[in-house]
């Protein structure tokens, strides 16, 4: 399949707090989604007779995903949903959707961090960190 160039504008993040696949878009994501930062553990499989070292991939740590939201304590769609997930540590399912629409595979994770920032002349925001559990979700499913 040929490359489709994409920019971040128009990308949405969906969440199903139950961990299933009925996603509702989080409408207040401010300016980007970072991660998950998946990393593979490396195992050295070199033996003495090898001129060049060899390695194999072992387990994959899916890492974390972070994003900022416009924080509003009365916002039921985003702020209240995420703060409830943070307080319950429930494993939710998440999915990134690109304009098209085209979706990444969903990934599971719990809200591991929530930090609000209040400044005089800037939007009140909160940085949300998701600890991913299982696959990082990279890979594109067919168009919806």
């Amino acid at each position: 399949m040929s490359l489709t160039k994409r920019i971040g504008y128009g990308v949405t993040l969906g969440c199903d707090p139950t961990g299933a696949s009925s996603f509702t878009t989080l409408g207040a994501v401010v300016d980007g989604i970072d991660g998950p930062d998946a990393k593979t553990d490396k195992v050295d499989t070199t033996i003495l007779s090898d001129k060049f070292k060899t390695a194999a991939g072992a387990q994959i740590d899916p890492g974390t995903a972070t994003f900022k939201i416009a924080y509003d304590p009365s916002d039921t769609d985003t702020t209240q949903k995420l703060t409830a997930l943070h307080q319950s540590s429930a494993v939710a399912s998440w999915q990134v959707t690109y304009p098209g629409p085209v979706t990444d595979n969903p990934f599971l994770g719990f809200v591991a961090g929530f930090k609000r920032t209040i400044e005089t002349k800037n939007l009140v925001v909160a940085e949300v960190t998701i600890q991913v559990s299982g696959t990082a979700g990279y890979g594109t499913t067919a168009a919806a």
Partner: protein
Amino acid sequence: MQLDIDLTTFMSAQLSGKPVEQNKLAEDYTTTPAVVFFRSDSTEDLLLNGDAGLTTTNYDVEIYGSDIDAVESAADTLKTALHGKIGAMGDSTILGAFVSDHASDYVPKADLATDEGLNSSTFSLQIIQ
């Protein structure tokens, strides 16, 4: 822009009906002091999904007239009323208004439009919605 209209009405009310115009001097600028203001820029932020974020609008406000005391008194009245204002301004709702002095090299446009050597007091105004 609705905010321009509401700002005009608001400033005129603070000055008991003195002339307030956008982008041009009042026809009768001998009724001093008078106010002219210019919108220098307006920026609307967008959230990732395209929803509107904050809109920030910047204005240059000039109070001008032949009586320097009246000009400065009017400028002080407007600065006090505008700086830190939150909430309704006519039909607009603002999250915050902030007044700051102009840079020392700002040239009042009111001075450029007349040859009568008027006194002027200027400030910049930022409104966040």
